[in-house]
């Protein structure tokens, strides 16, 4: 089920892959000696011995999880599956390979600016293996307000090795375009995925970007997002993390235009031995930008969560409003949360603040609720549910909000015993 025709690889793309390979060969996998990876070790991942695989077993619609929204675009093991996907009006391209065959120059323009790869070893590795990925390109003024689901399914069906999949995603919204997307990460087996996502928001563009990370509990999930924010563009993202034994999400938001708005939020629910690490940079370069980060999570068993958020306000970025909050509830004596909310500020007329809290669930309301006849475990579920729901409160798309709410409810119910 691989794409039938392999396109000629343009020279620039080969060169780009080569650069990625060279950098990755030099850096190797990051270790906790690297400040960005202070709280996350890839030792276990290394030992798994994942290998690159091109094999896609026979998948038909019945093998796919239930559709969450009207329109769905499907990728299996890193490659676009047109047969399993719906048609969406208003999109210039859907997959990287398609776009590459139609408009190679446009792809080049959007792909070559990869940033400093030696600071991002996993992105370098991904760059060395650029194949397919999502490429959603919206012309100026195109509005796709109805949310589209993008399913990334990873399987080990018919694969002999422990497979490693790469995806290179591009979201390009030209001036004034609007897009609403839910990325849904699912899979079965022991595998690793390395996603790199480059987003270009041109002037006045608006991107609502939701993510549901529900990989197999034996999987490794790496995602690196880089966002170029032109003037007056707006971005809102919520990531819901439930899956993978190890996941790491890097978000670099570069506010290169004035008056942009950037909301990066997340919620996570972890149990077993899951490890989840988020690193966020909001880099304000021009005046009057607003960036907000809110991460909330609950940690059970021997799980560990890491939140490293940074608001960087450069000298010209007067009038910046930058906020950052991380709240975690520990449900088990063996769970751990590490937070490093950082501010780096070089402009005086700004409002910046951050806060971080962690600890056990506040038990005070429990007795009150019990005295009103609510059983204790239900009361705890209610409290934890409302704690997490704050993250999704401001999502104005009802369909998306209810998908996230269902995830919260489902997790809490399935951990009834633990609570």
């Amino acid at each position, binding site marked *: 089920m691989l794409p039938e025709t392999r396109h000629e690889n343009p020279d620039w793309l080969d060169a780009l892959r080569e650069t990625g390979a060279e950098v990755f060969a030099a850096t190797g996998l990051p270790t906790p000696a690297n400040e960005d990876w202070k709280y996350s070790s890839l030792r276990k991942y290394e030992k798994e011995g994942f290998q690159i695989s091109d094999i896609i077993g026979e998948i038909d619609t019945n093998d796919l999880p239930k559709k969450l929204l009207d329109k769905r675009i499907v990728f299996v093991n890193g490659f676009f599956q047109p047969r399993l996907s719906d048609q969406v009006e208003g999109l210039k391209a859907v997959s990287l390979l398609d776009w590459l065959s139609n408009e190679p120059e446009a792809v080049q323009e959007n792909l070559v600016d990869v940033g400093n790869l030696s600071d991002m070893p996993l992105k370098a590795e991904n760059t060395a293996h650029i194949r397919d990925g999502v490429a959603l390109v919206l012309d100026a003024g195109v509005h796709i307000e109805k949310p589209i689901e993008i399913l990334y399914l990873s399987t080990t069906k018919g694969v002999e090795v422990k497979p490693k999949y790469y995806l290179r995603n591009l979201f390009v919204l030209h001036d004034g375009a609007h897009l609403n997307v839910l990325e849904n990460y699912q899979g079965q087996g022991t595998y690793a995925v390395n996603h790199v996502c480059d987003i270009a928001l041109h002037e006045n563009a608006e991107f609502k970007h939701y993510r549901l990370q529900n990989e197999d509990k034996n999987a490794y999930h790496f995602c690196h997002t880089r966002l170029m924010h032109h003037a007056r563009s707006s971005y809102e993202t919520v990531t819901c993390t439930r899956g993978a034994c190890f996941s790491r999400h890097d978000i670099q938001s570069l506010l290169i235009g004035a008056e942009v708005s950037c909301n990066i939020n997340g919620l996570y629910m972890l149990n077993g031995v899951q490890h989840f690490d988020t690193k966020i940079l909001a880099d304000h370069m021009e005046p009057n930008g607003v960036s907000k980060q809110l991460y909330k999570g609950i940690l059970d068993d021997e799980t560990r969560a890491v939140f490293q958020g940074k608001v960087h306000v450069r000298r010209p970025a007067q009038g910046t409003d930058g906020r950052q909050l991380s709240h975690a509830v520990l449900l088990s004596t063996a769970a751990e*949360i590490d*937070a490093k909310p*950082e*501010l780096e*500020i070089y402009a005086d*007329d700004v*409002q910046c603040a*951050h806060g971080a*809290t962690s600890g*056990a669930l506040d038990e005070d309301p429990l007795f009150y609720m019990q005295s009103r006849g609510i059983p204790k475990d239900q009361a705890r579920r209610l409290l934890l549910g409302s704690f997490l729901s704050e993250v999704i409160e401001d999502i104005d798309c009802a369909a998306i909000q209810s998908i996230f709410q269902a995830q919260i409810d489902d997790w809490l119910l399935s951990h009834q015993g633990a609570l």
Partner: protein
Amino acid sequence: MSNRFAQETLDTVKNLEKYDAGFVTDIEMEKAPKGLNEDIIRFISAKKKEPEWLLEERLKAYKHWQDMPEPNWAKLKIDPIDYNDAYYYAAPKRDEDKPETLDDVDPKILETYEKLGIPLKEQEILAGVKTRKVAVDAVFDSVSVATTFREELKKAGVVFCSISEAVQEYPDMVKKYLGSVVPMTDNKHACLNAAVFTDGTFVYIPKGVRCPMELSTYFRINEANTGQFERTLIIADEGSYVSYLEGCTAPMRDENQLHAAVVELIALDDAEIKYSTVQNWYPGDENGKGGIYNFVTKRGICKGKNSKISWTQVETGSAITWKYPSCILAGENSVGEFYSVAITNNYQQADTGTKMIHLGKNTKSRIIAKGISAGKSDSTYRGLVRISPKAVGARNYTQCDSLLIGDQCGAHTVPYIENKNMSAVVEHEATTSKISEDQLFYCQQRGISEEDAVALIVNGFCREVMQHLPMEFAVEAQKLVGISLEGSVG
């Protein structure tokens, strides 16, 4: 009370030169040859008539030091230091062997301390010329030249002397505790100190004793091309209490001088140590030339149950400050506190904060840090709160506020929060703001000049921290706020 402070602040701003401690005392010095090597270390040890074990420790530290990298994780730009281009021992010739009484001290040195406003004359203090009794250990370059009120303190059982004297008189205690909180391999600066420390203060408060007066050390760098490497060790035995203050100044010079101190505090069961610093080393001129490199390792251990260590610091001086007074909260119910004001102006850089390591049950810590940046300076709060798995019921509250004055400076906050215990509650908050035009105009409309208004508003911003300083120091600190921000507006 606060009125008086504010008024004095305003008066001082008007009346004083920018850095009034910047004078040099012309005095004949005994110096070790320039440079750093084993012979210099042997020279220092011999000068101090030290026992063999201490010399061995020094040499061991020196070996480690040679292989250790400079700490590079702080947000500081530091020109490479030529460790061989400095004197590691400089003592006033006449007072090299510590004078028995104040009358024997070189009058020039007495004059120096007088000029700095440090009371060394017990009679004057007793006669009420100075407000309150504070015992002083005066450290001049590499040696302690005078320690006041020793006899009176001795009656209470309190040991207050220079560390060199303690090595001779209380060798067992020194051997037991020196390096027990800050091991020599902790970091390069601490390691250098372990190799070349020359003097400093030793305090022991016996069981159940509340130290009858405040103790203080006043550090003065005078000689050119010298570093100051002092070592302070304070042991508070069960149920005791002590409040200790330190102050420091240096002449204005175009070269950078290194100050690498190590302070270790030990609080046993139910003991409390309150440690306050007003750091006013020469900050360099308005073009960033000269000034002290203040690379200090300060750490206390709350060893006993219910013990408490409280650090309060007002950092206005130094070209570069690298300093993280920390608490290891080992004893059950022990408490660590850190109250800090760091002001940078012109080209100053400060990277300062604390570490609160919660090991024991029900340990509590509180961090209030206020950073003020002006001119082209950079100020960073860097802190670590670590709750270990055994620290059941631990609590931490942290608040970091930054104030920026002008658009050429930087203010940064880098907290590390590690919670490995579900029963712990850890809270951290930070904000960044500036002095608003509205506030300045409001003050000016009431007759307060712009520069005084800045001092007033900044002192208000720092109030929560200043309140924790002993009164005499609070007055001094409030003055310094005004002085160090001079020229930052308008």
